[in-house]
């Protein structure tokens, strides 16, 4: 179990490296899929709600300090994303979620939550409504992230617990 936590942190750094160096090449209109969010949803469903929440907080902290984002914003949004994704960590249904496109829907839902927080912080001191920003800027990143998360469904071992 402990090694799983360690791997989750190692994967985070590897994906962050990939996301900030290689992924911008395939950016569509300045939008890149959020690999960190996919990883967080995956581990929250694997490790449970409590671990997912803490992992979201840790991921958010590292993301904020490394990318120079306003410290605390990603921490807050990923903590909540980890908590929400953790609701789907039922041990009996885990395989069902990962081997099914339900995982993609869960990623899409979590991405919308993440975008909602981004829109909220963006609209704090402007005359722009959170809903309008979410519709303008939240939908495309959500679709792109959900599309990439299909890879998890495709490559997830089909008989991991047999």
């Amino acid at each position, binding site marked *: 179990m402990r090694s799983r936590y360690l791997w989750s942190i190692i994967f985070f*750094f590897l994906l*962050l*490296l990939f996301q*900030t*160096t*290689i992924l*911008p*090449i395939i*950016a569509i*209109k*300045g*939008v*890149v899929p959020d690999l960190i969010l996919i990883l967080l949803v995956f581990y929250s469903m694997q490790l449970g*709600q*409590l671990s997912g*929440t*803490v992992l*979201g*907080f840790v991921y*958010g902290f*590292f993301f*904020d*300090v*490394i*990318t*120079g*984002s*306003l*410290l*605390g*914003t990603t*921490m*807050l949004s990923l*903590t*909540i994303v980890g*908590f929400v994704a*953790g609701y789907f960590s039922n041990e009996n249904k885990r395989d069902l979620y990962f081997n099914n496109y339900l995982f993609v829907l869960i990623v899409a839902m979590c991405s919308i939550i993440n*975008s909602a927080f*981004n*829109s909220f*912080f*963006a*609209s*704090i001191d*402007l*005359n*722009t409504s959170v809903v309008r*920003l979410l519709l*303008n*800027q*939240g939908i495309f*990143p959500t679709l792109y992230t959900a599309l990439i998360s299909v890879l998890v469904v495709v490559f997830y071992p089909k008989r991991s617990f047999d």
Partner: protein
Amino acid sequence: MLRFFSDVWKNFKEYIVLVVLIVISLIILASNQKPAAKKISSTFFGTFANFASVISDALNITKYKIENSELQKKNVELMLEVSRLRQYGIENSELKDLLGIKDTIKYPITPALVVSKSLSSAQGTYTINVGRSDSVRPGMPVINEFGLIGIVYASSSDYSIVRTLRNIDLSITVKDERSRVDGVMKWNGSNLVIINVPKTYDIESGDRIITSDLSSIIAMPLPVGIVTGLNKVETGIFNEVTVKPFVDFSKAEHVFVIKVVESKEEDNLELNFFNRK
């Protein structure tokens, strides 16, 4: 009593942890401008950028050949333009001599490579491979051949984080090049907008937007973008002007830092507005 707490923890531990972590996040959010927060950030991104630069270098090698031929073509075009501008420059300096105006403005620039990009919808940032050892300091403008990219936000010894124009925490005073109207430009999460522009101001679609000499951060005219529309705010007396930046933020790789802040005294004076958040 202990059993009660134990039961509460057992039944609600996920919620308790969630609330505690949210509170910690909010506290950290509130203490963003403290020097300790910036120090932690510069330590982490400096370390991370070492790894990112290895990947970035490897990726760029393949692109250099294509870029080289494009740059050679651009060089020729620029050479022709420079010779034309040189003529204007000579005329200009002669006229300035006649009027007794001294031209003292000269900005040293440092080339840099973008080693990583965070293209989030609200907080776009770049990490560039120049830092304090190259005399790069927070507040210095970063440009490329198309125009303004952003401002250096934090620096470690070898790397710096740049807040791009696509960052909600960056506001810049800009000017309409044609009508000379000033305004404050921000990223609203989906567009660059000049906010609170009185409806009576003369701004039209297609106008070029440059940085204003009123700016406390960038007091030189740098191209920013082009006006694409005026959002008529139904109530009130203000418009919101939408600006399309000249720079494509997902493609910028080679950038230049303009070293406008050269002394600490100047730094403190110039960055008053930048530091105040």
